């Protein structure tokens, strides 16, 4: 007896062309259908085409990026440290902790200065947001958020409100009140809604608009009064971790950095990405504009800080040292842009000479990683917040 397997043919109407044919089982997006052989072949070639399209798109994108790099390189005729050779070297810097703010019960994640140059708002992992007069080290307000890991906080330009958010995926605005009878949480306004954690927030030129960045890969501009979304910014391929508004005359752009190693400059009006830079080797934790608005610095997990020029459209300096192994979590410029302060995950703060590219000073003091760092509005000091539950003001 011979061993023969018979293929059982199912006859019926094809799920695609509805003609009466011999059918074959076919899987489309994990759903089982029955196609006739002709339709099955067509589907196979379509799938092939789709993959080809994706692959060809990817290669087209890569080649264009390569061309872009070539164009950028053409106008690069000199390095920053070469130009800076004739600049006088900075003297020795003695910067000390002038104030230590203790009061948070857990890791300090974010802080921001008030325009009055002495008050700050800080947020921590246990959900507490505290407003301090850091000159006297007095606490003035405290709010407990309903979520933990409040990763973003900002002071309103008028000094009358603060914004904060984190794992609750929202950005809420709290008007500051000294009325003992009023509970600050009662007047809270929920402004932004994202689909993942809030990583950064900032008021624009007034108390009435907030710009947010989120782990859902987008940035968004909101109207505080109504909570309306005014503009959203899509383009990052992963979580957006930081943002900074440009100090320009026409005040229309901001820069954001994310886990996709890209720093992107956006037009707030149109929502379009105007410029993008992708030279970091790891997540970008912090971006900050140079005071003139023509450049910005970024700090990343790859242990480097980099300076990108917007007019030259390229990276123009890298601030790194072999002995610096841990990622930079936050960066800020001094008032003149000559110094770059960067807080690192190895508990230190490094001070860089922006023009010469060398490290001017290293500051010890924190007992856990430095998570946030901002220079005061008049440049007299800078404040650093750390996972060791404290904030320090240095000058």
């Amino acid at each position, binding site marked *: 007896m011979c061993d023969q397997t018979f293929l059982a043919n199912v006859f019926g109407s094809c799920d695609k062309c509805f003609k009466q044919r011999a059918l074959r089982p076919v899987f489309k997006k994990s759903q089982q259908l029955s196609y006739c052989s002709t339709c099955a072949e067509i589907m196979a070639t379509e799938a092939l085409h789709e993959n080809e399209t994706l692959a060809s798109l990817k290669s087209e994108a890569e080649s*264009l990026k390569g061309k872009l790099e070539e164009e950028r390189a053409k106008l690069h005729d000199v390095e920053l440290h070469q130009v800076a050779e004739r600049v006088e070297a900075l003297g020795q810097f003695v910067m000390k902790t002038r104030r230590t703010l203790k009061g948070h019960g857990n890791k300090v994640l974010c802080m921001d200065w008030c325009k009055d140059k002495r008050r700050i708002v800080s947020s921590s992992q246990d959900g507490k947001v505290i407003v301090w007069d850091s000159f006297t080290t007095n606490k003035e307000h405290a709010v407990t958020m309903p979520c933990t*890991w409040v990763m973003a906080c900002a002071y309103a330009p008028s000094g009358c409100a603060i914004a904060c958010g984190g794992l609750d995926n929202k950005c809420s605005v709290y008007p500051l009140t000294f009325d003992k009878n009023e509970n600050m949480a009662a007047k809270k306004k929920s402004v932004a809604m994202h689909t993942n954690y809030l990583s950064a927030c900032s008021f624009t030129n007034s108390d009435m608009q907030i710009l947010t960045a989120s782990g859902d890969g987008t940035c968004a501009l909101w109207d505080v009064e109504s909570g309306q979304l005014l503009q959203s910014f899509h383009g990052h391929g992963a979580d957006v971790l930081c943002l900074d508004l440009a100090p320009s005359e026409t005040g229309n752009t901001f820069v954001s950095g994310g886990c996709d190693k890209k720093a992107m400059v956006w037009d707030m009006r149109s929502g379009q990405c105007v410029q993008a830079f992708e030279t970091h080797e790891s997540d970008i934790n912090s971006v900050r504009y140079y005071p003139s608005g023509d450049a910005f610095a970024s700090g990343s997990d790859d242990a480097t800080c980099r300076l990108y020029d917007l007019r030259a459209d390229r990276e123009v300096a890298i601030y790194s040292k072999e002995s610096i192994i841990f990622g930079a979590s936050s960066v800020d410029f001094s008032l003149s842009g000559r110094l770059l302060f960067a807080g690192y995950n190895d508990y230190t703060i490094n001070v860089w000479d922006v023009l010469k590219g060398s490290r001017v000073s290293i500051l010890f003091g924190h007992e856990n990683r430095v998570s946030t760092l901002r220079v005061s509005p008049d*440049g007299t000091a800078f404040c650093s917040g750390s996972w060791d539950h404290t904030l320090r003001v240095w000058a």
Partner: protein
Amino acid sequence: MAAGPAPPPGRPRAQMPHLRKMERVVVSMQDPDQGVKMRSQRLLVTVIPHAVTGGDVVQWLTQKFCISEEEARHLGAVLVQHGYIYPLRDPRSLVLRPDETPYRFQTPYFWTSTLWPAAELDYAIYLAKKNIRKQGTLVDYEKECYDRLHTKINHAWDLVLMQAREQLRAAKQRRKGDRLVIACQEQTYWLVNRPPPGAPSVLEQSPGRGSCAASRVHMTKRADFYKQEIEYCRRALGRTRVKSSVCLEAYLSFCGQRGPHDPLVSGCLPSNPWISDDDAYWVMNAPTVVAPTKLRVERWGFSFRELLEDPVGRAHFMDFLGKEFSGENLSFWEACEELRYGAQAQVPTLVDAVYQQFLAPGAARWVNIDSRTMERTLEGLRQPHRYILDDAQLHIYMLMKKDSYPRFLKSDMYKGLLAEAGIPLETKKRVFPFSRRPRHSSPSPALLPTPVEPTAAGGPGGGDGVA
């Protein structure tokens, strides 16, 4: 509070690049020629080979990276904290002592990045071994963990005990020196991965970073992501760029110009409030002060933006424009700013107010915009949105910047202000440096009454001279 959510399995090196770098440092420290001097260390009756002293580690780091001793000690401490180097004598505390204290390099098997994340089962076996070997050597928190694990993986407890006994039996067959070393290595690994309460966990990460890997993969696979990139590249290829030399020179001149105005670079007079505890500097430079300092008046000459951002400067400029009968330009610009940054609900009202006051034919403060811009603006006013006045605003801004501003700087008014402005005297050093000046508090901006109605000629954000 307990540590954040457990890190995702796989690719720890990619997510924590500092681990790879630390490993490279540690490997080069063990280089037979260029590395740290190795010696044999006598511990009680055993001799442990390949030990190094804390002092040698610090010295090697100082020389290799050309850093100060303080920094080298810090770097060394960080390496020990992450378990890449462990102390032989006092294995409980992962601290680097820069003296004759002996240390050893952790075996790559136990590196943070290799065996990660630490498995509960392994921890249970480790604690069980400790418990069996010498009853009662488990420290408090270890006892708690042991009990908790016992409840949690009760079903596998026989396996745990069996494994523990097996490992202890196998260990007995090794030389005493090896046994000691392996015990230290294991202990270090667990100190890093399960730190005692109160000690910072070096492996803790911010929440959400774990999702990076997943979302990154997800987002890049979509076709429209690439299409967006292609479109961006095409646009970018067409943009004009400036030569690097020009851009970089601009930094030099900016930093040079602003250097004397930067308190952290050049100090500030009378004194830096944070250093001297005296807030005189802030009082003298308050937003609306009658007599601005010389540096402040100088800054108004740096750029038009600097002048406008300073309330005192802006007020003087407004006076100047008033003399030239072009004050409506600045008022118009301020009204446009208010529109752009104002509440969404206010947009139609504000647009209308601006139109009535500045743009309507025969308006009280009519601004002179070129006809094309005026046409476009009036056209757009039919469907007002917050950016509708951008063109007109930019036109007026440029007019002021290119025309009125340079005249202001050359004017007698400005020259007079510059001459009048004083340079504060440096605060005399305190006789008794250890006595602290009382630090004055200042009223919170949240206490100041907010203005009732935002006028078109108001300052930024509708406030007036906010402290």
